[in-house]
Protein backbone atom coordinates (compact mmCIF):
# COMPACT_ATOMS: atom_id res chain seq x y z
CA UNK A 1 0.00 0.00 0.00
CA UNK A 2 1.28 3.45 -0.83
CA UNK A 3 2.41 5.48 2.17
CA UNK A 4 1.40 2.68 4.48
CA UNK A 5 2.90 4.09 7.65
CA UNK A 6 0.68 7.15 7.75
CA UNK A 7 -0.03 7.96 11.36
CA UNK A 8 -2.14 10.40 13.27
CA UNK A 9 0.95 12.54 13.66
CA UNK A 10 1.36 12.85 9.90
CA UNK A 11 -2.25 13.97 9.83
CA UNK A 12 -1.56 16.53 12.56
CA UNK A 13 1.46 17.84 10.65
CA UNK A 14 -0.67 18.22 7.51
CA UNK A 15 -3.49 19.86 9.41
CA UNK A 16 -1.09 22.40 10.85
CA UNK A 17 -0.10 23.53 7.37
CA UNK A 18 -3.01 22.92 5.02
CA UNK A 19 -6.47 24.16 5.91
CA UNK A 20 -8.27 21.54 3.88
CA UNK A 21 -11.41 21.18 5.91
CA UNK A 22 -13.30 23.80 3.99
CA UNK A 23 -12.76 22.29 0.60
CA UNK A 24 -16.18 20.70 0.61
CA UNK A 25 -19.37 22.61 0.98
CA UNK A 26 -17.82 26.04 1.11
CA UNK A 27 -19.80 29.07 0.06
CA UNK A 28 -17.75 29.66 -3.07
CA UNK A 29 -19.59 29.06 -6.29
CA UNK A 30 -19.07 29.89 -9.89
CA UNK A 31 -16.15 29.40 -12.19
CA UNK A 32 -12.55 30.28 -11.60
CA UNK A 33 -9.91 30.98 -14.19
CA UNK A 34 -6.38 30.18 -13.19
CA UNK A 35 -3.21 31.42 -14.91
CA UNK A 36 -0.78 28.64 -15.84
CA UNK A 37 2.72 28.76 -17.35
CA UNK A 38 3.36 27.59 -20.91
CA UNK A 39 6.25 25.31 -21.90
CA UNK A 40 8.69 28.17 -21.88
CA UNK A 41 7.70 29.25 -18.44
CA UNK A 42 5.96 32.33 -19.73
CA UNK A 43 2.69 33.13 -18.03
CA UNK A 44 -0.34 32.73 -20.21
CA UNK A 45 -3.46 34.73 -19.83
CA UNK A 46 -6.33 33.23 -17.88
CA UNK A 47 -6.85 29.60 -18.79
CA UNK A 48 -9.51 27.43 -17.24
CA UNK A 49 -8.40 24.46 -15.22
CA UNK A 50 -11.88 23.70 -13.99
CA UNK A 51 -13.13 20.14 -13.77
CA UNK A 52 -16.22 19.83 -15.88
CA UNK A 53 -19.10 17.91 -14.41
CA UNK A 54 -22.51 17.33 -15.98
CA UNK A 55 -25.65 16.75 -13.94
CA UNK A 56 -28.55 15.47 -15.98
CA UNK A 57 -32.03 14.73 -14.63
CA UNK A 58 -35.27 13.35 -15.98
CA UNK A 59 -38.43 13.12 -13.87
CA UNK A 60 -39.35 9.80 -15.49
CA UNK A 61 -36.04 8.01 -15.13
CA UNK A 62 -37.25 5.99 -12.14
CA UNK A 63 -40.81 4.82 -11.65
CA UNK A 64 -42.82 2.86 -9.12
CA UNK A 65 -40.86 0.33 -7.14
CA UNK A 66 -37.64 2.08 -8.13
CA UNK A 67 -37.93 0.62 -11.62
CA UNK A 68 -35.32 2.17 -13.91
CA UNK A 69 -36.47 3.27 -17.35
CA UNK A 70 -33.62 2.03 -19.52
CA UNK A 71 -34.55 4.12 -22.53
CA UNK A 72 -34.64 7.38 -20.59
CA UNK A 73 -31.46 6.52 -18.73
CA UNK A 74 -29.70 5.84 -22.03
CA UNK A 75 -30.73 9.30 -23.22
CA UNK A 76 -29.60 10.90 -19.97
CA UNK A 77 -26.20 9.27 -20.25
CA UNK A 78 -25.91 10.30 -23.88
CA UNK A 79 -26.86 13.90 -23.08
CA UNK A 80 -24.38 14.02 -20.25
CA UNK A 81 -21.46 12.52 -22.14
CA UNK A 82 -21.96 14.69 -25.21
CA UNK A 83 -22.19 17.80 -23.03
CA UNK A 84 -19.12 16.75 -21.10
CA UNK A 85 -16.97 16.13 -24.15
CA UNK A 86 -18.37 18.78 -26.49
CA UNK A 87 -19.66 16.38 -29.12
CA UNK A 88 -23.13 16.32 -30.60
CA UNK A 89 -23.25 12.62 -31.31
CA UNK A 90 -22.98 10.21 -28.36
CA UNK A 91 -21.03 7.60 -30.29
CA UNK A 92 -18.56 10.23 -31.43
CA UNK A 93 -18.22 11.28 -27.80
CA UNK A 94 -17.58 7.72 -26.64
CA UNK A 95 -14.97 7.31 -29.36
CA UNK A 96 -13.02 9.97 -27.50
CA UNK A 97 -13.04 7.68 -24.47
CA UNK A 98 -12.45 4.22 -25.90
CA UNK A 99 -10.98 2.67 -29.02
CA UNK A 100 -11.71 -0.74 -30.55
CA UNK A 101 -8.48 -2.26 -29.25
CA UNK A 102 -9.20 -1.31 -25.66
CA UNK A 103 -10.09 -3.77 -22.95
CA UNK A 104 -12.83 -2.03 -20.97
CA UNK A 105 -13.77 -2.73 -17.38
CA UNK A 106 -17.03 -1.20 -16.21
CA UNK A 107 -16.64 -1.01 -12.45
CA UNK A 108 -20.14 -1.17 -11.11
CA UNK A 109 -21.60 -1.52 -7.65
CA UNK A 110 -23.61 -4.65 -7.05
CA UNK A 111 -24.83 -4.19 -3.50
CA UNK A 112 -28.28 -5.81 -3.33
CA UNK A 113 -30.20 -2.93 -1.85
CA UNK A 114 -29.00 -0.10 -4.05
CA UNK A 115 -27.00 -1.34 -7.02
CA UNK A 116 -25.86 0.64 -10.02
CA UNK A 117 -28.34 -1.48 -11.92
CA UNK A 118 -28.64 -2.98 -15.39
CA UNK A 119 -30.10 0.15 -17.00
CA UNK A 120 -26.97 2.23 -16.36
CA UNK A 121 -24.63 -0.71 -16.94
CA UNK A 122 -26.40 -1.52 -20.18
CA UNK A 123 -26.32 2.08 -21.38
CA UNK A 124 -22.57 2.25 -20.82
CA UNK A 125 -21.91 -1.09 -22.44
CA UNK A 126 -23.99 -0.22 -25.47
CA UNK A 127 -22.03 2.95 -26.15
CA UNK A 128 -18.68 1.26 -25.54
CA UNK A 129 -19.69 -1.31 -28.15
CA UNK A 130 -20.98 1.43 -30.48
CA UNK A 131 -17.54 2.98 -30.24
CA UNK A 132 -16.12 -0.23 -31.67
CA UNK A 133 -15.07 -2.30 -28.67
CA UNK A 134 -16.05 -5.97 -29.14
CA UNK A 135 -18.34 -7.38 -26.48
CA UNK A 136 -15.78 -9.95 -25.40
CA UNK A 137 -13.43 -7.13 -24.45
CA UNK A 138 -15.92 -5.57 -22.06
CA UNK A 139 -16.43 -6.64 -18.45
CA UNK A 140 -18.92 -5.45 -15.86
CA UNK A 141 -18.02 -6.29 -12.30
CA UNK A 142 -17.87 -5.15 -8.69
CA UNK A 143 -16.44 -7.69 -6.29
CA UNK A 144 -13.76 -9.87 -7.78
CA UNK A 145 -12.27 -7.32 -10.16
CA UNK A 146 -8.76 -8.22 -9.03
CA UNK A 147 -9.26 -11.77 -10.28
CA UNK A 148 -11.20 -10.96 -13.41
CA UNK A 149 -9.22 -11.42 -16.65
CA UNK A 150 -10.80 -8.41 -18.35
CA UNK A 151 -10.15 -6.11 -15.42
CA UNK A 152 -6.65 -7.51 -15.07
CA UNK A 153 -5.92 -6.53 -18.67
CA UNK A 154 -8.11 -3.44 -18.79
CA UNK A 155 -6.77 -0.43 -20.63
CA UNK A 156 -9.88 1.62 -19.85
CA UNK A 157 -12.09 1.74 -16.80
CA UNK A 158 -15.56 3.25 -16.61
CA UNK A 159 -16.61 3.85 -13.02
CA UNK A 160 -20.34 3.78 -12.20
CA UNK A 161 -22.14 3.55 -8.87
CA UNK A 162 -25.03 5.03 -6.86
CA UNK A 163 -24.57 7.83 -4.35
CA UNK A 164 -25.40 7.06 -0.75
CA UNK A 165 -24.27 7.78 2.73
CA UNK A 166 -21.77 5.24 3.88
CA UNK A 167 -20.81 3.91 7.28
CA UNK A 168 -17.04 3.93 6.82
CA UNK A 169 -16.51 6.78 4.40
CA UNK A 170 -19.47 9.06 5.06
CA UNK A 171 -20.30 9.11 1.39
CA UNK A 172 -20.25 6.14 -0.95
CA UNK A 173 -19.52 7.49 -4.39
CA UNK A 174 -17.03 7.22 -7.25
CA UNK A 175 -13.76 7.45 -5.30
CA UNK A 176 -15.00 4.82 -2.87
CA UNK A 177 -16.11 2.53 -5.68
CA UNK A 178 -12.52 1.46 -6.35
CA UNK A 179 -12.12 -0.12 -2.92
CA UNK A 180 -12.50 -3.51 -4.62
CA UNK A 181 -9.20 -2.94 -6.39
CA UNK A 182 -7.36 -3.67 -3.15
CA UNK A 183 -7.06 -7.13 -1.59
CA UNK A 184 -8.03 -5.93 1.88
CA UNK A 185 -10.51 -3.03 1.78
CA UNK A 186 -10.59 -2.70 5.56
CA UNK A 187 -7.03 -1.35 5.45
CA UNK A 188 -8.53 1.82 4.04
CA UNK A 189 -11.28 2.28 6.61
CA UNK A 190 -9.15 4.21 9.12
CA UNK A 191 -9.88 7.88 9.77
CA UNK A 192 -13.16 7.66 7.86
CA UNK A 193 -11.41 6.31 4.76
CA UNK A 194 -9.29 9.45 4.57
CA UNK A 195 -6.87 8.02 2.05
CA UNK A 196 -9.15 6.22 -0.35
CA UNK A 197 -7.70 8.29 -3.16
CA UNK A 198 -4.41 6.42 -2.89
CA UNK A 199 -6.15 3.45 -4.47
CA UNK A 200 -6.35 5.46 -7.66
CA UNK A 201 -2.59 5.38 -8.00
CA UNK A 202 -2.35 1.58 -7.87
CA UNK A 203 -1.29 -0.14 -11.12
CA UNK A 204 -4.67 -1.81 -11.68
CA UNK A 205 -6.30 1.58 -11.82
CA UNK A 206 -3.84 4.38 -12.42
CA UNK A 207 -4.58 6.49 -15.47
CA UNK A 208 -7.22 4.13 -16.82
CA UNK A 209 -10.45 5.77 -15.75
CA UNK A 210 -12.01 7.66 -18.62
CA UNK A 211 -15.41 8.36 -17.13
CA UNK A 212 -17.07 8.50 -13.72
CA UNK A 213 -20.82 8.12 -13.46
CA UNK A 214 -22.49 8.80 -10.14
CA UNK A 215 -26.08 7.70 -10.08
CA UNK A 216 -28.42 9.93 -8.11
CA UNK A 217 -31.52 8.27 -9.48
CA UNK A 218 -32.57 7.34 -5.95
CA UNK A 219 -29.73 8.40 -3.64
CA UNK A 220 -29.70 7.64 0.07
CA UNK A 221 -29.21 10.73 2.22
CA UNK A 222 -29.27 9.31 5.74
CA UNK A 223 -28.45 6.24 7.73
CA UNK A 224 -28.76 5.02 11.30
CA UNK A 225 -25.95 2.92 12.73
CA UNK A 226 -23.95 0.37 10.77
CA UNK A 227 -27.01 -0.87 8.89
CA UNK A 228 -26.43 0.30 5.35
CA UNK A 229 -29.87 0.67 3.87
CA UNK A 230 -33.21 2.17 4.61
CA UNK A 231 -35.79 2.66 1.88
CA UNK A 232 -37.30 5.64 3.67
CA UNK A 233 -34.06 7.60 3.30
CA UNK A 234 -34.02 7.33 -0.47
CA UNK A 235 -35.54 9.99 -2.63
CA UNK A 236 -36.24 10.10 -6.37
CA UNK A 237 -33.74 12.74 -7.38
CA UNK A 238 -33.74 11.26 -10.89
CA UNK A 239 -30.24 12.40 -11.70
CA UNK A 240 -26.89 11.21 -13.00
CA UNK A 241 -23.60 13.06 -12.57
CA UNK A 242 -20.91 12.45 -15.14
CA UNK A 243 -17.32 13.66 -15.23
CA UNK A 244 -13.73 12.67 -15.80
CA UNK A 245 -12.58 14.01 -12.44
CA UNK A 246 -13.88 11.60 -9.77
CA UNK A 247 -13.32 14.12 -7.00
CA UNK A 248 -15.37 16.78 -8.75
CA UNK A 249 -18.13 14.25 -9.42
CA UNK A 250 -18.18 13.10 -5.80
CA UNK A 251 -17.97 16.61 -4.43
CA UNK A 252 -20.99 17.61 -6.50
CA UNK A 253 -22.94 14.57 -5.41
CA UNK A 254 -22.02 15.21 -1.80
CA UNK A 255 -23.30 18.77 -2.01
CA UNK A 256 -26.64 17.43 -3.20
CA UNK A 257 -26.78 14.92 -0.33
CA UNK A 258 -25.94 17.70 2.12
CA UNK A 259 -28.64 19.92 0.64
CA UNK A 260 -31.19 17.12 0.96
CA UNK A 261 -30.24 16.62 4.59
CA UNK A 262 -30.67 20.33 5.25
CA UNK A 263 -34.08 20.20 3.57
CA UNK A 264 -35.24 17.18 5.59
CA UNK A 265 -33.66 17.95 8.97
CA UNK A 266 -33.91 21.73 8.82
CA UNK A 267 -30.27 22.06 9.83
CA UNK A 268 -26.76 21.11 8.79
CA UNK A 269 -26.79 17.75 10.47
CA UNK A 270 -23.38 16.10 10.12
CA UNK A 271 -23.13 12.63 8.68
CA UNK A 272 -22.44 9.89 11.21
CA UNK A 273 -19.06 9.57 9.53
CA UNK A 274 -17.40 12.60 7.98
CA UNK A 275 -17.01 12.37 4.21
CA UNK A 276 -13.64 14.09 4.37
CA UNK A 277 -12.05 11.60 2.01
CA UNK A 278 -13.46 13.64 -0.87
CA UNK A 279 -11.74 16.85 0.21
CA UNK A 280 -8.57 14.91 1.05
CA UNK A 281 -8.56 13.33 -2.40
CA UNK A 282 -7.99 16.89 -3.57
CA UNK A 283 -5.88 18.51 -0.89
CA UNK A 284 -3.79 15.55 0.23
CA UNK A 285 -3.68 13.33 -2.83
CA UNK A 286 -4.20 15.68 -5.78
CA UNK A 287 -6.60 13.31 -7.48
CA UNK A 288 -8.96 16.06 -8.60
CA UNK A 289 -10.93 19.10 -7.53
CA UNK A 290 -13.31 19.16 -4.61
CA UNK A 291 -13.86 22.89 -4.26
CA UNK A 292 -17.01 23.99 -6.11
CA UNK A 293 -15.04 26.99 -7.30
CA UNK A 294 -12.87 24.59 -9.28
CA UNK A 295 -15.78 22.74 -10.83
CA UNK A 296 -17.63 23.72 -13.98
CA UNK A 297 -21.06 22.28 -13.29
CA UNK A 298 -23.39 21.92 -16.28
CA UNK A 299 -27.02 21.19 -15.44
CA UNK A 300 -29.34 19.55 -17.94
CA UNK A 301 -32.95 18.38 -17.93
CA UNK A 302 -35.47 18.41 -15.09
CA UNK A 303 -34.88 21.29 -12.68
CA UNK A 304 -37.45 20.74 -9.91
CA UNK A 305 -35.85 20.01 -6.56
CA UNK A 306 -32.40 20.57 -8.00
CA UNK A 307 -30.82 21.32 -4.60
CA UNK A 308 -27.62 22.69 -6.12
Amino acid sequence: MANKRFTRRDFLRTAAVVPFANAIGCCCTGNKLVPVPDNNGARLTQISRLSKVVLVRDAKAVGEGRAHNAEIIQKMLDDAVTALLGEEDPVAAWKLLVKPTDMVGIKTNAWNFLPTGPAIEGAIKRRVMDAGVPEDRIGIKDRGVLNDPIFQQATVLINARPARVHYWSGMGSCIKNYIMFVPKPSEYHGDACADLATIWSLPAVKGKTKLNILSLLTPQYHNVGPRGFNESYLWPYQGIIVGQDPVAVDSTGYRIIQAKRREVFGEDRPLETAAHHIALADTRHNLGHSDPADIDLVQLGWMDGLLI
Partner: protein
Amino acid sequence: MKPAAWALTVLVLTGGRLPSMSPTPFQAASPPGALLPADFLGYKAEPPDQTYEGEGIFDYIDGAGEVYRAYNYKSVIVRRYKKPAAAEITVDLFDMGSPKDAFGVFTHDLEGEPWSIGQGSLYKSGLLQFWRGRYFVSIYAENEAAETKAAVSELGTRIAAAVGADGPRPDLLDRLPDDFRGAGPVRYLHSPVILNYHFFVSRENLLRLDGTTEAVLAAKGEKGARRYLLLVRYPTPEKAREAERGFLAGYIPDAQTAGARRVEGLVRTEDGRWTAAFKENAYVVVVFNAATEAEAEAAREAALSKLRRT
Protein backbone atom coordinates in the same frame (compact mmCIF):
# COMPACT_ATOMS: atom_id res chain seq x y z
CA MET B 1 -23.67 10.96 23.19
CA LYS B 2 -26.64 12.47 24.95
CA PRO B 3 -25.93 13.00 28.66
CA ALA B 4 -28.68 10.60 29.65
CA ALA B 5 -26.95 7.83 27.78
CA TRP B 6 -24.03 7.93 30.17
CA ALA B 7 -26.10 6.58 32.98
CA LEU B 8 -26.57 3.27 31.30
CA THR B 9 -23.12 3.22 29.75
CA VAL B 10 -21.58 3.71 33.15
CA LEU B 11 -23.83 1.08 34.60
CA VAL B 12 -22.88 -1.41 31.96
CA LEU B 13 -19.17 -0.69 31.99
CA THR B 14 -18.82 -0.73 35.72
CA GLY B 15 -20.60 -3.99 36.11
CA GLY B 16 -23.93 -2.69 37.32
CA ARG B 17 -26.97 -4.91 36.92
CA LEU B 18 -30.29 -4.12 35.39
CA PRO B 19 -33.58 -5.37 36.82
CA SER B 20 -34.33 -7.64 33.87
CA MET B 21 -31.02 -9.46 34.08
CA SER B 22 -30.64 -12.99 35.18
CA PRO B 23 -27.75 -13.61 37.57
CA THR B 24 -27.16 -17.12 36.27
CA PRO B 25 -23.87 -17.92 34.54
CA PHE B 26 -23.63 -17.68 30.79
CA GLN B 27 -24.70 -20.76 28.88
CA ALA B 28 -25.09 -21.55 25.21
CA ALA B 29 -28.66 -20.90 24.08
CA SER B 30 -30.97 -22.35 21.45
CA PRO B 31 -30.41 -22.08 17.69
CA PRO B 32 -30.81 -18.42 16.72
CA GLY B 33 -34.00 -18.78 14.69
CA ALA B 34 -35.81 -20.28 17.64
CA LEU B 35 -35.03 -17.23 19.73
CA LEU B 36 -37.19 -14.91 17.66
CA PRO B 37 -40.98 -14.83 18.13
CA ALA B 38 -43.26 -15.67 15.23
CA ASP B 39 -45.53 -12.77 16.12
CA PHE B 40 -46.04 -10.04 18.70
CA LEU B 41 -48.44 -7.12 19.18
CA GLY B 42 -50.12 -7.82 15.87
CA TYR B 43 -46.86 -8.03 13.92
CA LYS B 44 -46.18 -11.24 12.06
CA ALA B 45 -42.88 -12.59 10.83
CA GLU B 46 -42.48 -12.25 7.08
CA PRO B 47 -40.75 -15.41 5.86
CA PRO B 48 -38.23 -16.42 4.92
CA ASP B 49 -35.56 -15.52 7.47
CA GLN B 50 -32.19 -14.78 6.01
CA THR B 51 -28.96 -16.04 7.49
CA TYR B 52 -25.51 -14.72 6.74
CA GLU B 53 -22.14 -16.09 7.73
CA GLY B 54 -18.56 -15.07 7.05
CA GLU B 55 -18.17 -12.66 4.16
CA GLY B 56 -21.82 -13.17 3.29
CA ILE B 57 -22.58 -10.30 5.63
CA PHE B 58 -21.31 -7.89 2.98
CA ASP B 59 -24.33 -8.82 0.87
CA TYR B 60 -26.55 -7.62 3.68
CA ILE B 61 -24.93 -4.57 5.19
CA ASP B 62 -22.20 -3.76 2.72
CA GLY B 63 -18.80 -2.61 4.00
CA ALA B 64 -20.10 -2.07 7.52
CA GLY B 65 -20.17 -5.84 7.78
CA GLU B 66 -16.51 -5.44 8.63
CA VAL B 67 -17.58 -4.27 12.09
CA TYR B 68 -19.14 -7.63 12.91
CA ARG B 69 -16.30 -9.57 11.32
CA ALA B 70 -13.88 -7.60 13.49
CA TYR B 71 -15.72 -9.02 16.49
CA ASN B 72 -15.66 -12.60 15.17
CA TYR B 73 -19.39 -12.89 14.50
CA LYS B 74 -20.53 -16.44 13.75
CA SER B 75 -23.81 -15.72 12.01
CA VAL B 76 -26.65 -13.26 11.79
CA ILE B 77 -30.25 -14.17 11.28
CA VAL B 78 -32.52 -11.50 9.84
CA ARG B 79 -36.25 -11.59 10.37
CA ARG B 80 -38.74 -9.00 9.15
CA TYR B 81 -42.05 -8.32 10.85
CA LYS B 82 -45.08 -6.73 9.24
CA LYS B 83 -48.36 -5.40 10.50
CA PRO B 84 -51.07 -3.64 8.48
CA ALA B 85 -50.67 0.15 8.50
CA ALA B 86 -47.52 -0.04 10.60
CA ALA B 87 -43.86 0.41 9.78
CA GLU B 88 -41.91 -2.76 9.03
CA ILE B 89 -39.58 -3.94 11.77
CA THR B 90 -36.37 -5.83 11.11
CA VAL B 91 -34.42 -7.85 13.64
CA ASP B 92 -30.78 -8.76 13.20
CA LEU B 93 -29.80 -11.40 15.73
CA PHE B 94 -26.03 -11.79 15.78
CA ASP B 95 -24.45 -14.83 17.34
CA MET B 96 -21.10 -13.33 18.31
CA GLY B 97 -19.72 -16.57 19.67
CA SER B 98 -18.84 -15.12 23.08
CA PRO B 99 -20.20 -12.59 25.57
CA LYS B 100 -16.98 -10.60 25.22
CA ASP B 101 -17.54 -9.99 21.57
CA ALA B 102 -21.26 -9.37 21.99
CA PHE B 103 -20.29 -6.71 24.50
CA GLY B 104 -17.58 -5.43 22.18
CA VAL B 105 -19.77 -4.96 19.17
CA PHE B 106 -22.32 -3.22 21.37
CA THR B 107 -19.66 -0.73 22.46
CA HIS B 108 -18.89 0.09 18.85
CA ASP B 109 -21.93 2.36 18.68
CA LEU B 110 -22.72 4.04 22.00
CA GLU B 111 -24.98 6.77 20.68
CA GLY B 112 -28.53 6.75 21.91
CA GLU B 113 -30.97 6.82 24.77
CA PRO B 114 -30.48 4.25 27.56
CA TRP B 115 -32.96 1.38 27.48
CA SER B 116 -33.40 -1.36 30.03
CA ILE B 117 -33.11 -4.50 27.96
CA GLY B 118 -30.46 -7.19 28.14
CA GLN B 119 -27.05 -6.37 29.59
CA GLY B 120 -26.81 -3.03 27.86
CA SER B 121 -29.10 -1.31 25.39
CA LEU B 122 -29.51 1.94 23.55
CA TYR B 123 -32.26 3.40 21.39
CA LYS B 124 -32.02 6.02 18.67
CA SER B 125 -34.22 6.93 15.71
CA GLY B 126 -36.14 3.67 15.54
CA LEU B 127 -33.07 1.53 16.23
CA LEU B 128 -32.78 -0.49 19.44
CA GLN B 129 -29.53 -2.34 20.05
CA PHE B 130 -28.67 -4.54 22.99
CA TRP B 131 -26.45 -7.42 24.01
CA ARG B 132 -26.99 -10.37 26.26
CA GLY B 133 -24.86 -13.47 26.64
CA ARG B 134 -23.20 -14.15 23.33
CA TYR B 135 -25.87 -12.34 21.33
CA PHE B 136 -25.98 -8.85 19.94
CA VAL B 137 -29.40 -7.75 18.72
CA SER B 138 -30.41 -4.88 16.48
CA ILE B 139 -34.10 -4.09 16.05
CA TYR B 140 -35.00 -1.46 13.53
CA ALA B 141 -38.30 0.16 12.60
CA GLU B 142 -38.51 1.72 9.15
CA ASN B 143 -40.27 4.76 10.53
CA GLU B 144 -40.12 6.04 14.05
CA ALA B 145 -43.45 6.62 15.80
CA ALA B 146 -44.80 6.10 19.29
CA GLU B 147 -46.39 2.81 18.28
CA THR B 148 -43.29 1.45 16.59
CA LYS B 149 -41.10 2.52 19.49
CA ALA B 150 -43.30 0.51 21.83
CA ALA B 151 -43.27 -2.41 19.43
CA VAL B 152 -39.50 -2.36 19.10
CA SER B 153 -39.20 -2.31 22.86
CA GLU B 154 -41.62 -5.20 23.33
CA LEU B 155 -39.84 -7.27 20.71
CA GLY B 156 -36.50 -6.53 22.35
CA THR B 157 -37.79 -7.61 25.72
CA ARG B 158 -39.03 -10.90 24.32
CA ILE B 159 -35.80 -11.65 22.50
CA ALA B 160 -33.70 -10.73 25.54
CA ALA B 161 -35.69 -13.23 27.58
CA ALA B 162 -35.34 -15.91 24.91
CA VAL B 163 -31.57 -15.68 24.47
CA GLY B 164 -31.04 -16.89 27.99
CA ALA B 165 -28.50 -16.08 30.61
CA ASP B 166 -26.21 -13.11 30.96
CA GLY B 167 -22.55 -13.44 30.09
CA PRO B 168 -19.46 -11.92 31.64
CA ARG B 169 -18.05 -8.64 30.45
CA PRO B 170 -14.39 -8.64 29.40
CA ASP B 171 -12.26 -8.65 32.53
CA LEU B 172 -9.89 -6.25 30.81
CA LEU B 173 -12.32 -3.47 31.73
CA ASP B 174 -11.41 -3.98 35.36
CA ARG B 175 -7.82 -3.03 34.59
CA LEU B 176 -8.66 0.45 33.43
CA PRO B 177 -7.49 3.19 35.75
CA ASP B 178 -10.34 4.61 37.79
CA ASP B 179 -10.50 8.00 36.11
CA PHE B 180 -11.13 6.38 32.73
CA ARG B 181 -13.95 4.17 33.99
CA GLY B 182 -17.36 5.61 33.27
CA ALA B 183 -15.98 9.03 32.37
CA GLY B 184 -16.73 8.66 28.69
CA PRO B 185 -17.14 6.06 25.94
CA VAL B 186 -15.35 2.77 26.57
CA ARG B 187 -14.91 0.42 23.62
CA TYR B 188 -13.70 -3.14 23.67
CA LEU B 189 -12.00 -4.30 20.48
CA HIS B 190 -9.50 -6.58 18.78
CA SER B 191 -9.00 -4.97 15.42
CA PRO B 192 -6.99 -1.97 14.23
CA VAL B 193 -9.90 -1.19 11.90
CA ILE B 194 -12.17 -0.62 14.88
CA LEU B 195 -9.51 1.30 16.78
CA ASN B 196 -8.94 3.60 13.83
CA TYR B 197 -12.67 4.18 13.44
CA HIS B 198 -12.90 5.60 16.95
CA PHE B 199 -9.44 7.10 17.19
CA PHE B 200 -7.19 7.08 14.18
CA VAL B 201 -3.70 6.00 15.19
CA SER B 202 -1.98 4.75 12.08
CA ARG B 203 -2.73 3.11 8.79
CA GLU B 204 -0.21 0.46 9.73
CA ASN B 205 -1.05 -1.88 12.57
CA LEU B 206 1.71 -0.52 14.81
CA LEU B 207 0.30 -2.08 17.97
CA ARG B 208 0.05 -5.54 16.40
CA LEU B 209 -3.66 -5.88 17.21
CA ASP B 210 -5.23 -9.12 16.03
CA GLY B 211 -7.58 -11.88 17.07
CA THR B 212 -5.26 -12.88 19.91
CA THR B 213 -5.23 -9.45 21.51
CA GLU B 214 -7.86 -7.66 23.55
CA ALA B 215 -7.99 -3.91 23.78
CA VAL B 216 -10.03 -1.27 25.53
CA LEU B 217 -10.17 2.29 24.28
CA ALA B 218 -11.48 4.60 26.98
CA ALA B 219 -12.09 8.31 26.65
CA LYS B 220 -12.80 11.13 29.04
CA GLY B 221 -13.49 14.81 28.64
CA GLU B 222 -15.58 16.77 26.22
CA LYS B 223 -15.51 16.22 22.48
CA GLY B 224 -12.68 18.24 21.01
CA ALA B 225 -10.60 18.02 24.18
CA ARG B 226 -10.97 14.32 24.78
CA ARG B 227 -8.19 12.27 26.34
CA TYR B 228 -7.88 8.62 25.37
CA LEU B 229 -6.35 5.65 27.07
CA LEU B 230 -5.72 2.50 25.09
CA LEU B 231 -5.06 -0.66 27.07
CA VAL B 232 -4.00 -3.75 25.14
CA ARG B 233 -3.45 -7.24 26.49
CA TYR B 234 -1.22 -9.59 24.49
CA PRO B 235 -0.91 -13.37 24.79
CA THR B 236 2.61 -13.06 26.20
CA PRO B 237 4.93 -10.35 27.57
CA GLU B 238 7.18 -10.92 24.56
CA LYS B 239 4.33 -10.07 22.19
CA ALA B 240 3.65 -6.96 24.24
CA ARG B 241 7.30 -5.97 23.99
CA GLU B 242 7.23 -6.36 20.20
CA ALA B 243 4.10 -4.24 20.01
CA GLU B 244 5.53 -1.54 22.24
CA ARG B 245 8.69 -1.37 20.15
CA GLY B 246 6.64 -1.21 16.96
CA PHE B 247 4.55 1.61 18.34
CA LEU B 248 7.49 3.60 19.65
CA ALA B 249 9.36 3.26 16.38
CA GLY B 250 6.38 4.02 14.17
CA TYR B 251 4.46 6.60 16.15
CA ILE B 252 6.86 8.34 18.48
CA PRO B 253 10.37 7.78 17.21
CA ASP B 254 11.22 11.18 18.66
CA ALA B 255 9.99 10.26 22.13
CA GLN B 256 13.39 9.75 23.66
CA THR B 257 14.49 13.25 22.84
CA ALA B 258 11.26 14.99 23.69
CA GLY B 259 10.36 16.56 26.98
CA ALA B 260 12.58 18.17 29.52
CA ARG B 261 13.53 14.92 31.22
CA ARG B 262 13.80 12.81 28.08
CA VAL B 263 11.45 10.11 29.29
CA GLU B 264 11.16 7.16 26.95
CA GLY B 265 7.69 6.76 25.49
CA LEU B 266 6.55 10.30 26.18
CA VAL B 267 6.25 12.95 23.52
CA ARG B 268 4.55 16.20 22.69
CA THR B 269 2.76 15.78 19.39
CA GLU B 270 2.18 18.30 16.64
CA ASP B 271 -1.09 19.55 18.12
CA GLY B 272 0.60 20.47 21.39
CA ARG B 273 -0.83 17.50 23.27
CA TRP B 274 1.05 14.65 24.88
CA THR B 275 1.27 10.95 24.14
CA ALA B 276 2.70 8.42 26.55
CA ALA B 277 3.26 4.72 25.96
CA PHE B 278 4.59 1.92 28.12
CA LYS B 279 4.60 -1.83 28.61
CA GLU B 280 3.86 -3.75 31.78
CA ASN B 281 4.03 -7.55 31.62
CA ALA B 282 1.66 -8.58 28.80
CA TYR B 283 0.05 -5.16 28.56
CA VAL B 284 0.76 -2.08 26.52
CA VAL B 285 -0.82 1.22 27.50
CA VAL B 286 -0.92 4.36 25.40
CA VAL B 287 -2.27 7.67 26.64
CA PHE B 288 -3.28 10.02 23.83
CA ASN B 289 -4.15 13.72 23.84
CA ALA B 290 -3.09 14.60 27.39
CA ALA B 291 -3.16 18.36 27.80
CA THR B 292 0.19 18.56 29.56
CA GLU B 293 3.27 16.49 30.15
CA ALA B 294 2.31 16.18 33.80
CA GLU B 295 -1.15 14.92 32.89
CA ALA B 296 0.32 12.32 30.54
CA GLU B 297 2.69 11.12 33.22
CA ALA B 298 -0.07 11.03 35.82
CA ALA B 299 -2.26 8.95 33.49
CA ARG B 300 0.64 6.61 32.91
CA GLU B 301 1.29 6.24 36.61
CA ALA B 302 -2.38 5.59 37.32
CA ALA B 303 -2.56 2.93 34.62
CA LEU B 304 0.63 1.28 35.82
CA SER B 305 -0.56 1.28 39.39
CA LYS B 306 -3.86 -0.29 38.38
CA LEU B 307 -2.19 -3.01 36.37
CA ARG B 308 0.05 -3.90 39.27
CA ARG B 309 -2.90 -4.13 41.64
CA THR B 310 -5.16 -6.32 39.44
